[in-house]
């Protein structure tokens, strides 16, 4: 029997096209390695949550446990209020897009997309109609008769997305679907995934190690480290107010500048700035974003420009403090034109809150 969204608890909270997902105390170990050390995560109906982390942090394990492709040692997976912890993968009603190309090579694009519908007993006409609609949604309506080996990598992943969406899954799972693609296609496809996800409203769990990708598509980003969720927040909150030193250093680029914390404020580069909760006290290192560093040409300045890197509308300037510390500042390219290596500059920090970690 196949689980359909309408078979699930009707009282469960449910968005326009998705169901709430609740992971509680998920644990998984391989020998001595703890891939998941008690993961708790809640996804609202229709929400897109990205699990972000480096290799081996447990993010893919978590996704595979949600999909039913791996068993958890402990903990529960609930979708729409129903406990699916011990339900096999083929009964979970979840659509999944894999990192590796996963289209069935012997089937056409249309038959690939209709595969799950056939298993659900839909008539040929219904299958063709639905598969055609979903292919139109991902912009591949003209490629129905092609085979996987006649498509580019980006097209294959779009078909895989269409195939996962065709069955109208209760949850959409994306396991690094863009990592095998080149940079330009990756950006295009991530925007397309987001557009389609918003359009169909399916609750989505997306796993990636690419922070730019995570920040670009997510409603909320969960940063994982050593099998645990370090912080889950909106991309803006995560970037502006990291809860832990790991998040501060993992997400975005940060300068590590000497700081002294006193009375809820830190003194960094001669500027007094508020500190974020979780900061160390006394002497430490403030994690300061490059865009929070202000740089002014000043013959009396203590720092010297080391390099200027042009990045289009913005430039990244590296200046060296007298003690040898390199400070990276992000400035408008129009302002960076007059900067050359060796010039003396004065550095200040904008008064945005910073996280201070132990030295």
């Amino acid at each position, binding site marked *: 029997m196949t689980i359909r969204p309408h078979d699930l608890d009707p009282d469960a909270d449910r968005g326009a096209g998705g169901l709430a997902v609740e992971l509680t105390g998920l644990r998984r170990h391989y020998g001595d390695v703890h891939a998941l050390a008690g993961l708790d995560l809640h996804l609202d109906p229709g929400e897109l949550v990205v699990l972000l982390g480096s290799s081996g942090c447990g993010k893919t394990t978590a996704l595979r446990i949600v999909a039913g*492709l791996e068993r958890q040692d402990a903990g529960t997976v609930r979708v729409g209020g129903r406990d699916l912890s011990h339900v096999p*993968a083929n009964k979970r009603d979840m659509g999944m897009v894999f990192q*590796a190309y996963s289209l*069935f090579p012997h089937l056409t694009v249309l038959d690939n997309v209709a595969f799950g519908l056939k298993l659900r007993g839909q008539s040929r006409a219904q299958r063709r109609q639905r598969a055609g609609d979903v292919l139109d949604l991902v912009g591949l309506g003209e490629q129905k008769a092609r*085979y996987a080996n006649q498509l580019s990598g980006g097209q294959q992943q779009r078909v895989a997305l269409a195939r996962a969406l065709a*069955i109208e899954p209760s949850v959409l799972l994306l396991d690094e679907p863009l990592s095998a693609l080149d940079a330009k296609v990756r950006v295009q496809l991530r925007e397309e995934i987001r557009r389609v996800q918003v359009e169909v409203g399916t609750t989505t769990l997306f796993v990636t190690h690419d922070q730019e990708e995570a920040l670009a598509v997510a409603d909320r980003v969960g940063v994982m480290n050593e099998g645990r969720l370090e912080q889950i927040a909106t991309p803006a909150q995560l970037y502006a107010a990291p809860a832990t030193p790991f998040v501060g250093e993992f997400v975005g680029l940060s300068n590590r500048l000497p700081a002294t914390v006193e009375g809820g404020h830190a003194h960094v580069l001669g500027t007094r700035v508020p500190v974020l909760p979780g900061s160390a006290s006394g002497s430490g290192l403030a994690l300061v974003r490059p865009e929070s560093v202000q740089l002014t040409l000043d013959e009396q300045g203590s720092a010297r420009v080391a390099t200027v890197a042009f990045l289009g509308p913005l430039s990244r300037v590296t200046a060296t403090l007298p003690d040898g510390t390199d400070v990276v500042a992000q400035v408008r390219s129009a302002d960076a034109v007059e900067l050359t290596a060796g010039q003396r500059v004065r550095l200040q920090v904008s008064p945005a809150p910073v996280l201070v970690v132990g030295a």
Partner: protein
Amino acid sequence: MSAPGAGAGAVAWRISRVLLLLAFAGFFLLPLVALLDFSTKVPSTGDRTAQPWRDLLADEQMSSAITTSLLLAGLTVVGMVLLLVPTMVWVRLRVPRANRLVEFLCLLPLTIPALVIVVGIKNVYAWVDYLIGDSALTLTFVYVVLVLPYAYRSLDAALSGLDTTTLSEAARSLGAGWGTVIVRVIVPNIWSGVLSAAFISVALVLGEYTISSLLHYDTLPVAIVMLSKSDAPMSMAAALGSLIFAALLLLVLGALDRRRRPTGR
């Protein structure tokens, strides 16, 4: 414009390819031509005759042997596919650690002489005879074991070119059970390997003599050898007929495989 030396080299290469092809064709076709010649010649006068071929079709013992061998070939293929395909797929997906063990077990019959196999299974066949009768078709059991090394290699090559794990996980996430995964996703993608394994099995069964002879079953090779003692031209006709049948089967299987394979970009 290409250099004159390069053009001459290409011509030489083409000629050597044609010569090699002719040499190999001669090597393989000469015995077949000799068989045809022997089976259609009247020894005393040197005239041509189709009598041995007509006798072959009319000979009841030979017809029965051909039927038995064809049935054995079909049953062996079915047995091999049913045993090996799910086992190999299952091992790859669920217990990859057992892959080497399965490979070892499948290749084992290659290292054991047929005579030793016969001696070993004679006692087993006493029970087979007792339980399900002494039909020649019971040779299917031992033939399935005999074809394992060759069938394993064909299937292993086909499976190696396929990301079975990802495809099966994709199918499972779409709602497919394990049976559906194997029948609708894996097998269609290793079809060329299955066909190769089937062809090798058919060829092996049609040519197997030692075991069937020592176990006293009248299969085609046994009948051909028996016949060669009394009617040599007819036995040659039977040998050539079985070779032509095997070649035709290869062509049919090859054509089937080409029809199923989608063309690339």
